[in-house]
């Protein structure tokens, strides 16, 4: 266990920061939003991220990965949260490749992982079925039919769902959970892209009698839920890292504004009512940094308390990102509610990110249960 980045990881973080600031600032997301971009992210930027090694960073060396670990990827994702950079990194690399690495057979790994590492394949995890995160008990079914399975059901809030070429679908088998790799253009699949508050990429995907080969099954009833749980925990930690970056950025912009804005003949940052609230946010962010780093190291060290740390990190960052974005708007005053100021983008992203893989109530309940009460 370590809560300090090593030299290589720090360098990686700095490189990410430089790249994101110059190529993908918040204004890049604004452009995608304003031109109603059909993809929802920039292919060119994604290609550059791939060239920087971000798609292959956590994949095993045997499949063209760098095996560099999640402390490193987490640092990159944190930086991407500062500029709200839109890319398929989270859905493809964190969620889907984890399922393949943890559950896939040799053939699935050797076909899919090198393509993900090279940035040639985007994938999405079709998971949710109701307005709130629900990690088990799916109503989407996969019923055996000879050598095939027939998938029937509807998946909601599928991140990067409309642009992915392959999907991993979480289904209910006769006993337990089955995870299938499905071509996103298979017969019987219909995808509807939605324009979301945070200008990111989400789809509803219907499966109407979709026939898949048994070889598309990544993890059977025995292991499906476990593997899905692992991938979801990796996802929770990484989205928390993104939220940390967003919260820090929002906080720094707000403190800068407190030092610059004059009212009543003084800087508003001299008011104790604002100083104490700013100090409390600083404290929450410092605690959040520790929690995210420990959760990332729990992934790298394959620690048994990863589920606890993932819930700790996600619940905390849900709350802290909400606090900081709300305070940022309030402390900016009138300009805080204008579209011109970028603070609004962070506010919107915070609420969207909160709904990804579990809100705070979900994670506090889970944490308490994991701790025996």
């Amino acid at each position, binding site marked *: 266990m*370590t*809560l*300090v980045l090593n030299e290589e990881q720090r360098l990686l973080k700095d490189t990410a920061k430089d790249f994101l600031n110059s190529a993908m600032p918040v204004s890049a997301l604004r452009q995608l939003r304003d031109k109603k971009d059909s993809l929802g992210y920039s292919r060119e930027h994604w290609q550059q991220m791939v060239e920087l090694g971000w798609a292959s960073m956590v994949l095993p060396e045997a499949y063209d990965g760098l095996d560099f670990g999640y402390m490193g990827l987490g640092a990159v994702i944190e930086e991407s949260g500062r500029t709200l950079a839109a890319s398929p990194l989270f859905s493809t690399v964190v969620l889907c490749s984890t399922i393949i690495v943890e559950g896939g057979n040799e053939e699935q790994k050797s076909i899919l992982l090198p393509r993900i590492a090279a940035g040639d394949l985007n994938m999405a995890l079709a998971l949710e079925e109701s307005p709130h995160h629900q990690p088990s008990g799916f109503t989407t079914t996969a019923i055996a039919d000879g050598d095939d399975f027939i998938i029937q059901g509807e998946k909601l809030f599928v991140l990067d769902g409309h642009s992915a070429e392959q999907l991993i679908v979480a289904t209910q088998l006769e006993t337990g959970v089955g995870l299938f790799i499905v071509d996103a253009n298979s017969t019987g699949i219909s995808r509807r892209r939605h324009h979301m508050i945070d200008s990111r990429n989400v789809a509803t995907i219907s499966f109407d009698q979709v026939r898949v080969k048994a070889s598309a099954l990544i993890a059977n009833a025995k292991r499906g839920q476990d593997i899905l749980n692992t991938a979801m925990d990796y996802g929770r930690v990484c989205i928390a890292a993104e939220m940390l970056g967003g919260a820090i950025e929002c906080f720094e912009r707000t*403190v800068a504004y*407190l*030092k610059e804005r004059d009212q009543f003949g*003084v*800087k508003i*940052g*001299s008011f*104790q009512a*604002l*100083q*104490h609230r*700013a*100090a*409390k946010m*600083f*404290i929450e962010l*410092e*605690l*959040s*940094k*520790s*929690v995210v*780093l*420990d959760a990332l190291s729990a992934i790298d060290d394959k620690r048994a308390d990863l589920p606890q740390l993932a819930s*700790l990190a996600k*619940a*905390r960052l849900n709350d802290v990102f909400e606090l900081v974005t709300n305070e940022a708007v309030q402390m900016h005053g009138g300009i805080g509610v204008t579209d011109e100021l970028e603070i609004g983008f962070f506010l919107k992203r915070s609420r969207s990110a909160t709904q990804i893989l579990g809100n705070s109530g979900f994670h*506090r*309940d889970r*944490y*308490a*249960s994991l*701790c*025996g*009460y």
Partner: protein
Amino acid sequence: MSDLDQFRQTVNAWLEENCPPSQRIPITREEQVWAGKNKTFPSSDAKLWFERMRDKGWTVPEWPIELGGGGLDEQHAKILKEEMKRLGCRTPLFDLGIWMLGPAVLEYGTDEQRQQHIPKIARGEVRWCQGYSEPGAGSDLASLQTRAEDKGDHFLVNGTKIWTTNADKADWIFCLVRTDPDAKKQEGISFLLIDMDDAGVSTTPIELISGESEFCQTFFDNVKVPKANLIGELNKGWSVAKSLLKHERKLMAEIGGDTPGPSFSPIQAAIEYIGLDQSGRLKDIGIRDELVRHEMAFRAIGLTHFRSFEERMNGVADNNVPLIMKYVGTEESKRKEEVLMAILGHRALGWYDDEFNVDELLTNRGWLFSKALSIAGGTSEVQLNIIAKRVLGLPD
């Protein structure tokens, strides 16, 4: 094997051999060994354990060997602390001299002052108390009025100090006194050591809401104090005090989780006093939510302590992190006590009676005690001021 691993093994073997089994069970307040001229020991094992640790210099592991310390650097001292914790070894000696005054004398004292005071602290021969606050100077400490007039070969001290913890049992007191009444607030203050046996020094205890009275008010009536007892330069006592306050705040943050209280953890208490439903959840979902919020915050604080330590070890210290720990540690400790009170329900409300067991009585004592945590050693509000100004650079 690395030097540190080697050290860990040596420490472990020594502790195993030298720490009596009776000194490895959790300590109660009555069993603490406090420094002093007239030290008493609750048992012969406690005496033996203290003497062995003293002879090793491990009552103050990081102080120089020639002054009675253990001569360990921070990393080695941490290993000693960890191994003691792992075996459950009790802290062999309690004293404000160890936690607060000693580090200040080591940093600001002259050689003579170090020779005079440090070995006695290391050996537990003198009990120290602190004289900072006054009835009219709390958070605004720099407005203190206790005066020390220069009378040539000595200072003449007049005034009163409040919240002087255990002053009635202490041998010496370290004080902030005004030596230049005309200078601006912080600039006319000096740091002075006073022998409690000197003529003109008296104390009276103050009873608290928890029923305890370990705090006192101390009075100085024409007390003659030798010039040699001045620590640091004349009128520069404020910087000595600030450095020492850091130690106090660190201590407050650390003892936050260790206030007098019941033997059960909040989770154990909740399972006992509320019970679990068939799904394994506490039956009171409101209290369950309060409890888990506390537990999660507590873990985040623990991880932040650890991160701060690791950053220092790796030479990438962020000096702002320790500044937040006093605030967050004490506020979270207060929340823990509120949660515990809620968990015990009306069983937490007994004041004294055979009806209530010790843990139940200690629950409300701990709760009441915790209220002082965010006041003593700099109020939470002062801590937030410091973070806002010093860390965030917000204007005055």
